């Protein structure tokens, strides 16, 4: 019977009640090699049409959140479906050591994220002042965004066990691994840093630690 996989966690962690799974399917759990894996059985064909992908993804998120509130998890990307229990066992036999290594490393940690976006004001200005002015404004905005990220790193990185920044099309993304108990303090420090003009900032989390999982060497 096909199984939709949500996430894995260390076994024997106490958990609260879980919400219904995707499309109302019950969420089951199975222990294997020191791991607990969360899944729903029989995701039938009728449950997987384009209009339901979005709502199903949100239901998937709620299950992850319910487990993540109690313990560290490694989520599967939605929707990951295995053909049945035998295939799941084979997968866990192959990956269990890797999952356990990272779950132990990030047992008490969460991921916070900051998305620093160019707000588009410079683009509107470009319509009035031409391409050269637009490029100049754009450079200023990007420099301001980088400057803000440097301030954020100076404020939050001392509380973080790991930090990573990536340039994306819309701006800059920063990721921090912090202890759960330090989330509020990190957010407060970020809140005290107003973004510069032309830049918008969203700090989100706590999320499961995913950006820092490393498959190299596995």
């Amino acid at each position, binding site marked *: 019977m096909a199984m939709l996989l949500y996430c894995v966690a260390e076994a024997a962690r106490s958990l609260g009640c879980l919400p219904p799974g995707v499309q109302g399917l019950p969420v089951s759990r199975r222990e294997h090699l020191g791991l607990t894996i969360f899944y729903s059985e029989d995701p039938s064909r009728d449950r*997987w049409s384009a209009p339901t992908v979005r709502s199903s*993804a*949100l239901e998937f998120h709620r299950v992850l*959140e319910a487990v993540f509130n109690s313990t560290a998890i*490694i989520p599967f*990307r939605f929707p990951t479906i295995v053909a049945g229990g035998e295939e799941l066992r084979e997968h866990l036999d192959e990956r269990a050591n890797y999952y356990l290594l990272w779950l132990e490393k990030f047992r008490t940690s969460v991921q916070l994220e900051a998305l620093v976006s160019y707000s588009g004001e410079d683009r509107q200005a470009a319509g009035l002042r031409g391409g050269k002015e637009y490029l100049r404004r754009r450079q200023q905005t990007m420099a301001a965004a980088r400057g803000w990220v440097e301030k954020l790193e100076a404020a939050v990185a001392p509380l973080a066990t790991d930090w990573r920044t990536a340039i994306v099309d819309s701006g800059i993304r920063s990721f921090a691994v912090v202890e759960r108990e330090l989330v509020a303090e990190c957010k407060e420090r970020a809140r005290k840093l107003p973004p510069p003009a032309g830049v918008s900032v969203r700090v989100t989390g706590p999320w*499961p630690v995913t950006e820092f999982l490393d498959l190299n060497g596995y």
Partner: protein
Amino acid sequence: VSGQATKIVSSAEPGEDQLSVVEVLDHVLNRGVVVRGSVVISLAGVDLVYLGLDAILTSFETAVRHVATSPPKPSKP
């Protein structure tokens, strides 16, 4: 000159603290473990990940045939 205030958002639930649905979808669709040997098909711009052709659903048969002729994508977290 300062812009807008820094928005601080919880990841608990879309709609609470203005966590956007887009951010949640970005996480569940793009973050996390991809099972090695899985097949990735795309439906309405959304990548769907499956392990084992037996589990792929009939309604996706056309897409699966297309994927079966394409080189596999590498696994990554």
